[in-house]
């Protein structure tokens, strides 16, 4: 019971903290923009960690779906003049269809083959969007109307924060439900799971569609906030960042991954230029190299991520302590 109380307290503290942060930051646009971007990456990272870490499907097409969502909404708003709301709905529909299609194609692909296939699809999409610039504005960037007129930086912050909390809540709930158990069973041993009655096809495709839609939704919403989208977001760099954040945060848990993403995104920003011991260092593009190094080292020495142990300690240890205590008790009983 005590474990539960601690969990609830921590969650409430975090939510409250994030909720009140804009005021603590004095409403400064720069900080708010960084946090908004951090929340966006957190949504993508946690959903990717759900797909890859929990369900075991290492799809490299996640950013492609985000881009698909953003471009669908953007193109619709530009060419049909609809309001962003309909654009976002369309983005959801389109990513659902594509997610379903790709998910079915990927059924037979495992491990590296799935990764390669999704890299290929992602690149094909990116190049098409880039090249057909008479429709998509290519590298010049497609302009998207704001989410609602008169939106402020604080508004953007809260929109993405709410999105993140909703998605995290959803993913956390799914991970603990039978959906999560089936996905993990499929990840461990697909044939054995099937022999035990799990409809592997349905669950594999479902998780793919779900995470793709989340990515597409996040992409659509975020780029309406930013106002402009280019094919660069579908470049492998962005996908690599998501992967790095997920690994650093923790692949097993969407919440750890989200934490990792937020902190890493902030770190990425601060690394741009900082002062240490009175010395000003401008890292520029080296920040990405730093993250590459972090990714490699974390993977090598802290396989479960850097934040996962914290989450584990807070949320899962209590249950295990119970079990260990019970076992000790039993052993005592037998002896005594």
């Amino acid at each position: 019971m005590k474990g539960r109380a601690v969990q609830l307290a921590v969650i409430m503290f975090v939510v409250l903290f994030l909720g009140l942060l804009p005021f603590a930051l004095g409403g400064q646009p720069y900080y708010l923009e960084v946090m908004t971007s951090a929340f966006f990456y957190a949504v993508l990272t946690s959903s990717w960690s759900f797909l890859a870490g929990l369900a075991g499907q290492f799809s490299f097409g996640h950013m492609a779906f985000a881009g698909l969502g953003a471009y669908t909404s953007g193109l619709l708003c530009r060419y049909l003049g609809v309001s962003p709301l309909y654009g976002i709905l369309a983005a959801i529909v389109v990513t659902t269809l594509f997610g379903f299609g790709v998910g079915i194609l990927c059924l037979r692909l495992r491990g590296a083959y799935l990764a390669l296939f999704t890299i290929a699809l992602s690149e094909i999409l990116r190049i098409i969007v880039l090249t057909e610039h008479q429709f998509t504005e290519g590298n010049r960037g497609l302009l998207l109307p704001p989410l609602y007129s008169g939106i402020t930086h604080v508004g953007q912050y809260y929109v993405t924060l709410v999105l993140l909390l909703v998605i995290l809540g959803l993913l956390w709930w799914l991970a603990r439900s039978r959906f999560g158990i089936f996905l993990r069973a499929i990840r461990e041993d697909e044939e054995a799971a099937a022999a035990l009655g799990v409809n592997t096809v349905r669950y594999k495709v479902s998780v793919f569609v779900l995470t793709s839609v989340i990515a597409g939704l996040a992409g659509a919403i975020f780029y309406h906030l930013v106002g402009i989208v280019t094919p660069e977001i579908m470049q492998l760099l962005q996908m690599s960042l998501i992967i790095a954040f997920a690994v650093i945060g923790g692949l097993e848990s969407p919440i750890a991954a989200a934490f990792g993403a937020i902190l890493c995104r902030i770190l990425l920003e601060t690394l741009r230029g900082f002062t240490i011991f009175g010395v000003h260092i401008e890292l520029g593009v080296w920040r990405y190299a730093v993250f590459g190094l972090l990714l490699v080292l974390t993977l090598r020495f802290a396989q479960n991520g850097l934040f996962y142990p914290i989450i584990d300690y807070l949320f899962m240890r209590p249950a295990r302590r119970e079990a260990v205590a019970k076992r000790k008790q039993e052993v005592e009983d037998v002896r005594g």
Partner: protein
Amino acid sequence: MLEVRDVHKHFGGLQALAGVSFTLQEGELVGLIGPNGAGKTTLTNVITGLLKPTKGQVWFGGERIDGLAPYEIAMRGLGRTFQVTRAFRRMRVLENMLVPALAIHGRGHIKSLRRKALEVLEFLTIDHLAKEFARSLSGGQQKLLELGRLLMLDPKLLILDEPFAGVHPKLREAIYRFIFQVNEEGKAFIVISHDMDSIFTLSRRIIVLNCGQVIADGDPLSVKEDPLVIEAYLGEEKNEPGSTRAEEASFA
């Protein structure tokens, strides 16, 4: 309850099963034996849907099941264990047990399923390991877990593929206990094994497979004395490359 009708299975040019037929009644406890490469695992794979028969049919509970997906067959109450234990290693023991339970009970009450799982684990004397990750269990404990997990499927027929392989005597007792008790509750068993002592202890009916065909089907004594069976096991030094490949191919 289970009817295997003239099942054939080719792998390219290789004939793994060449016309296997037998029937199983509810609650029967049958041992399935045969030399290496006879087609026992292939037959199991065909019955449980991992493979489709080239010819022939498999009926279960009055319904034709060959051609159905493995999970559909499992949902109908036909489960199996594997020669090499395939527990879900990165999941806890209790979660392993819940997978089939949740699969067949849909949105069932997790609490009651958890309780049932713990009961089964207790019966198998591994309930103290409920919160452990499956990978930290010993080989023997994993075997017991697999049996318990299979039971959570609420099956009417359990096919055990080499449950005694590499198992020490004390554990073998536990597995006997499991099989007898569950059989008493009315569930049927097909036990595949090379361990002759165990098979002859357990079963009241033995089916012998050789080169993809049933060469004997009856009570243990008559099977023991059947000349065909003796020849199959002790017979001429035929080392047909085809037969070992059949066993290998069935793992594909």
